[in-house]
């Protein structure tokens, strides 16, 4: 593994977490498994959440492991010109999208009976319950709308980045995002 990693930091990437990441990436790239374990513990929740939302939840543990094994193998390609967390996230998204393609996850999720579920949410319910309904709602979105919604609104990628990852135009991602939001608002309405 290539240990000669440029560790330049971008403005705004500062903070002790990012500094710790860069130190540990450098060590891990040199073969230090303990350093990589620290990276794992700092980032596993975000990776696991993304995987769980983009794929079936029962696959999340397995694919999360795949992500970190892939990252370990690719650490030598991390140039340090973006935050490690950003790079990790891109690796995760690429792996998840590849997994979705491989597993043929293209079934229509937004089934007619989902309307009944959509209408169950009451405005008086606690926040946690709304969150659970919201998460369930995301799983019922049509696949492309779901991908765009999670990557843009949940994960914070820009339309240009989402379009690049999915191999579509920004016009498509904007249309799919609006479609997803229009469907998802039913999960918040009384």
């Amino acid at each position, binding site marked *: 593994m290539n240990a000669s990693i440029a560790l330049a930091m971008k403005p705004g990437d500062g903070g002790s977490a990012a500094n710790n990441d860069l130190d540990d990436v450098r060590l891990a790239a040199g073969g230090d498994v303990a350093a990589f374990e620290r990276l794992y513990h700092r980032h596993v929740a975000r990776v696991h959440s993304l995987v769980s939302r983009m794929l079936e939840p*029962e696959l999340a*543990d397995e694919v999360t*492991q795949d992500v970190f094994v892939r990252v370990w193998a690719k650490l030598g390609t991390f140039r340090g010109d973006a935050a490690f967390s950003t790079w990790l996230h891109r690796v995760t998204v690429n792996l998840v999208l590849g997994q979705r393609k491989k597993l043929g996850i293209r079934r229509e999720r937004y089934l007619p009976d989902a309307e009944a579920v959509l209408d169950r949410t009451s405005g008086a319910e606690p926040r946690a319950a709304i*969150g659970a309904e919201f998460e369930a709602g995301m799983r019922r979105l049509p696949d492309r709308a779901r991908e765009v919604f999670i990557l843009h609104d949940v994960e914070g990628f820009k339309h240009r980045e989402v379009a690049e990852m999915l191999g579509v135009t920004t016009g498509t991602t904007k249309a799919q*995002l609006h479609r997803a939001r229009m469907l998802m*608002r039913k999960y918040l309405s009384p």
Partner: protein
Amino acid sequence: MTDWTEKLSDYLDGDLSGDELAKLEAALQGDAALRGVLEELRAVKDTAASLPQHAPLSDLWSGIEARIEADRLADVVPLSSAGNARRRFSFTIPQLAAAAVALLVLGSASVWMAMSSGAGGLESGSPIAVAPAPEAGFVSAPGDGSTFSYEATIQDLEQQLQVGRDRLDPKTVATLEGSLATIDRAIARAQEALEADPASVYLNRHLADARTRKLHVLQQAARLARS
């Protein structure tokens, strides 16, 4: 006539400008229903951005570490050709066991074939290699066309492992148990999901893969325990 509802997400994201922006804002001033939709979309966007992160229920690190160690060993000793197969015996049994278990968890069919057939096939008395079954429950044995009970085979392998586990390094046993626990969780989750969606081909395939993976891990572990 413009359907301003279709522009509301662009407006929320700051992607409108000039004449279009001015017209939408004018429409919003005169249309309470449109304002209502806008607020709903804003709530959706805000909720999505504030969703909590979910850490895995169990620590996945042991499985990751095992796979990393297997990769490191594979870097040193190529396992991909029959000609190199004997070189791996220069490693200690615990090292080999850790690599084998991790590589099996990785699910690489090519590695599996290299390790099991590199010396001309499985040794006498070894459990038969199996291919992933299209449906969980039974696994076909190649060659004779017969089937055998998955559960009985698993039970038998677990007993073999139990008998020989004292011969394995404790670290190997820990790694093995961690991997099996991860696979068992995957099996349990797939079974739960199938209860809700029993016709799902995808879930059935996932369950079958997980069960086959458990079988592979136990086969190799039992083999090592006997050696």
